[in-house]
């Protein structure tokens, strides 16, 4: 079998059979989505990197306990969720700092990016998490329900609430500069 085309399930079986180096394949496949999920949830790039590493360490240690190997991604996001919420509990009261837009070139003007990042940062963590998992990570509602350990109806309610808030903050396009401050 060709390792380049190996799916998550095959890689997991290799790791559990003792080929621990294959775990790096899973890491390379998932580190960017997991990092993006964490950084958009907590707002701090450096801390997000540490939590991302913690997530993969925990996943490595608990891989044997994963029952349904076809649902690795939901399980991994669930671990990342727990890691982030432990951090929330530890740093209670620490305010969310919106991400500074990086140098990546996109069609979106910089002032709009600042406004959207700020609006996202103003959402409660559970609503922000649903937006991140749905819009940026593309998870299905039933997968988000697993990550948040909540009913699908609650997940959808959180998405509607967050979209209503974002709509009131962002208003109609194009965004003007007064929304940035």
């Amino acid at each position, binding site marked *: 079998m060709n390792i380049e085309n190996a799916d998550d399930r095959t890689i997991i079986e290799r790791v559990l059979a003792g*080929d621990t180096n294959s775990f*790096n394949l899973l890491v390379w496949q998932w580190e960017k989505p997991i990092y993006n999920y964490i950084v958009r949830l907590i707002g701090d790039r450096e801390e997000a990197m540490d939590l991302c590493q913690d997530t993969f360490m925990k996943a490595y240690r608990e891989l044997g306990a994963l029952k349904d190997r076809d649902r690795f991604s939901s399980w991994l996001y669930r671990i990342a969720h727990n890691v982030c919420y432990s951090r929330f509990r530890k740093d209670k009261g620490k305010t969310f700092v919106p991400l500074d837009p990086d140098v990546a070139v996109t069609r979106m003007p910089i002032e*709009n990016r600042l406004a959207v990042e700020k609006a996202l940062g103003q959402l409660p963590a559970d609503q922000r998490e649903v937006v991140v998992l*749905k819009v*940026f990570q593309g998870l299905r509602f039933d997968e988000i329900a697993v990550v948040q350990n909540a009913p699908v109806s609650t997940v*959808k309610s959180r998405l509607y609430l967050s*979209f209503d808030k*974002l709509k009131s903050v962002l208003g109609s396009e194009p965004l003007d500069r007064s929304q940035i401050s």
Partner: protein
Amino acid sequence: MIDMSHLEDRLAEFVYEELPASEMEDARRHVGQCPECQARVSDFEKIRHTLEELPDVEIPRRVVFVPSNDSVWSNFLSPRWLVPMATAAALVLALVLVGPIDVDWQESGVVIAFGEVVSPPASVPVARQPAITEPQTIDYERIVTELEERQQAWLESELVRRVAAIDAANRQEIQRVRANLVYLSDLQRAAGRDTMENSSSIQLLAARTGVQE
């Protein structure tokens, strides 16, 4: 007359096409006829597209796992332990082969006995041993030969073990290099995409600012 009820809390599943196929078809028919639901879908899509315009955040450094291949036994059998182990083995072997040894500790008069035979309990009858009239000679050549044989056997097994470990490490290394190649080719593709996006952005910017080529 408008077909079926409004989307209500099925709006998100409709937009993300997560409704069951039959419901999806009904919902499409309804939205096609209902201005109220059309407006709600449009608002939802607008926020969704605004959010989707945000670029991914680049990861500052990569996460790499380097599994350790060293077991407790391979550490224990490493060359730095070889001399103490051989010395200890020689001492034990000498005690077994030679029998009791008495050592006068630094001429202090204190005698330390190694391998002394414990006297049996008085109740157990023991055959009388003939008295040793001559000092027992030590067969050093036999001890050395036995030690060499044991060391040779150990070295052979160690050699086999280490060759197997090197083979396994090589296989892992090949796998790691292959995975790196996959990762690099992904990066190359992403860089290609970024370059195209950048050039189109530059063209767009140039068009906006009126810069002529």
